[in-house]
């Protein structure tokens, strides 16, 4: 650690600093030669530039290069649906927990009800997210008891008009396979938990 005493004002400190900057400059080129052809625009090159061993330049040329996002990365939610016999079935039951927990209150849900009895049906008639207001906190996905809403990885949402930013049910909908592709570890864990719960249920039934 440096001390304030000693080596006073001979320009040595400036020279040392310049030496460091020069080293950095050289390292960029040495690194380029060492990883010839692999340092830029390749997945391993991008991973290398985000690793602890990187020397020299570390910037990424967006949009030609994109840093892969980690699994937990969260950006604007989407609704999961399952495809059964060609029909789309949303996992959402319109219980409203996401709308209640949402800190900026950007989720709007219309619950469907049976036209004859007026009793609520576990299926959202309308589901809106105002993504201008969404703060990407991830609470809706975290507290959803049905794993029906999850946070997306797609962060390129720029559009020319704000009126496009009210996402409805169809715009929010994504198949389960998409979820499994962006969050494989979480998906596997949830599936395992579900299977276990089902086998336990079956076991309890068979005992009874």
């Amino acid at each position, binding site marked *: 650690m440096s001390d*304030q005493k000693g080596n006073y004002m*001979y320009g040595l400190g400036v020279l040392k600093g310049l030496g460091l900057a020069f080293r950095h400059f050289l390292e960029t080129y040495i690194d380029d030669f060492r990883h010839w052809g692999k340092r830029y625009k390749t997945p391993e090159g991008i991973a290398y530039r985000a690793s602890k061993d990187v020397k020299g330049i570390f910037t990424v040329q967006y949009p030609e290069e994109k840093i892969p996002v980690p*699994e*937990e990365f969260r950006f604007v939610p989407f609704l999961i649906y399952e495809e059964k016999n060609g029909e789309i079935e949303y996992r959402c039951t319109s219980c409203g*927990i996401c709308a209640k927990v*949402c800190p900026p209150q950007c989720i709007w849900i219309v619950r469907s009800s049976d036209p004859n009895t007026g009793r609520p049906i576990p299926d959202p008639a309308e589901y809106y997210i105002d993504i201008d207001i969404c703060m990407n*906190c991830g*609470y809706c996905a975290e507290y959803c008891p049905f794993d029906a809403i999850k946070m997306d990885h797609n962060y390129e949402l720029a559009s020319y008009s704000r009126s496009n930013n009210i996402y409805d049910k169809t715009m929010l909908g994504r198949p389960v396979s998409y979820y499994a592709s962006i969050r494989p570890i979480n998906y596997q864990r949830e599936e395992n938990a579900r299977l276990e719960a089902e086998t336990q249920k079956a076991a309890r039934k068979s005992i009874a």
Partner: protein
Amino acid sequence: MSNPNIALETDITFIFPNILVHDERPGYEGYIIKSEHIQNFMQKIRDDLGYDYLSSVTAVDYLPEGKMEIVYHVRKSTGGSPLVVKAQLDRENPVISSIVSIYPGAEFQEREIWDLFGIKFEGHPDLRRILMWEGFSGHPLRKDWKEGYYEEDNKPFKSRWPAGHYKSAEDKNPLGANLDFPAGFNPESWVPEPEVALYTGLGRIERKDEETGINTEQVIVNMGPQHPSTHGVFRMAVKLDGETIVGLKPVMGYLHRNHEKIGERNTFLGNMPYTDRLDYFNSMSNNFGYALAIEKLMGISPPERAEYLRVMMAELTRIVNHLALFGFLLNDLGAYFTPFLYAFEERELILDIFEAVAGSRMMCNYFRFGGVARDLPEGILNKVKDLVFDRLPRKIDDLDLYITNNEIIRHRAEGVGVFTPEQALAYSAVGPVLRASGVPYDLRRAQPYGIYNRFDFDVAVRYHGDVYDRYLVRLDEMFQSLRILKQVINDIPEGPIQEGKPQYQVRVPAGESYGCVEGPKGELGFYVISNGKANPWRYHIRAPSFINLTSLESLCIGNKIADVVVILGSIDIVLGETDR
């Protein structure tokens, strides 16, 4: 929370028999004082009892009882938990004497209370609005004041479910109909009064130089709000005599969104992501402070592993903050972007860890009441290990070599913006600013929270109190943070990360609580009052950036205009937190 100084605290009602009583309300702590005695009382506790450091002043509006309450948190610079004193005022005509003459650090905080609550402070030197503009109508933190986009008192709003037919906020409150003007105010013909008040406050003078017979005049220079050196939209009106600063008034509030009012509408859990937006460099430590405050009310504590994860994140964010400060400070000194980018490279690697753990680089929202949101994903602990044991020490050493003994930097920074320990304490300076002035005060030691009492580290302290020492203290702190991180990595146990089941509706018993952490910028406190319902009744943030600015004028006086930028940079402000 264990408090090593508990034995030193005595019942002070014996010393002030007729003016002080215990606060007997359930869940409350401290004392209630008769408001007319506040000045005498403060003078006495400062001079005789050693409470030399005013931590926070805030107010609470008890609308149902028709009362306003001022809450003082006063500390000893030797450590221990704060002394909480409250003065109750009549809501219709709230007046109390100012304590600025005793604790100069109260200046901005009292102005803020006047601005947001409309409580008058008699004897305050400059009682103007601070966050709102002078033409603003009403005092927004009063419970009966409603904002332009008002929908309901508390979230969740009933219009969202089960019949949530979407309606945009603009349709509900068309532009022009969503704001109030004071009576007789016409925005078209308005002359900016606050400017006049600001400049009168600075009081320019003209004089004749005795020796030369030349007439001189003091000049007022406006820096900001759109100035590259002010780290955001911050403005300073500087009064100059030649090149020397003789007066300075900071102007802030350009980024004001009344975070505290939003917080009172929010649910307890809903506030957590909002705290990220305060000091957006250090969302992890903001989360930490808020989680501590609510956990204190709920009476829960996180499991072991979560405690370690919290400390790990808090220390990583401290390194992030100080690295960013390096970059900015050196930019302010004219070094342009090279040191900035060197520092940001390391910051980038730490943010990658935050992104993998919390899901977002800056708006982490990682802490929950009684734990953290999720465990470390596979491989992240190794990444942290690599950084902490290998890369960061190397790179911080590099920065040290690069900057510390650079003659230009030393010429610019040594002896500039000097603060004595007495001044620093009086102005309620916190964090590195206080420690660079030779006061070894660090909440991690003074009032340990979480599991900080387990770790072996030193409180970084430097003694010259100038810009250079404020830089060095941060350098030292980064090494201490690495020391803590090494212990965390070695000791972190396996186990659960959340106490009980994660809940979205937490039950918070009625009462008050003040949760504070040593954030990278200093004491970050959350003062929360719950009335047992789903939303906080009062949610106040003791923002280190804001209160550190109180001392800006006295730091700058006597220095040259070119040094203002550097002094401001060395205080390390973030406008998201200053303006709230």
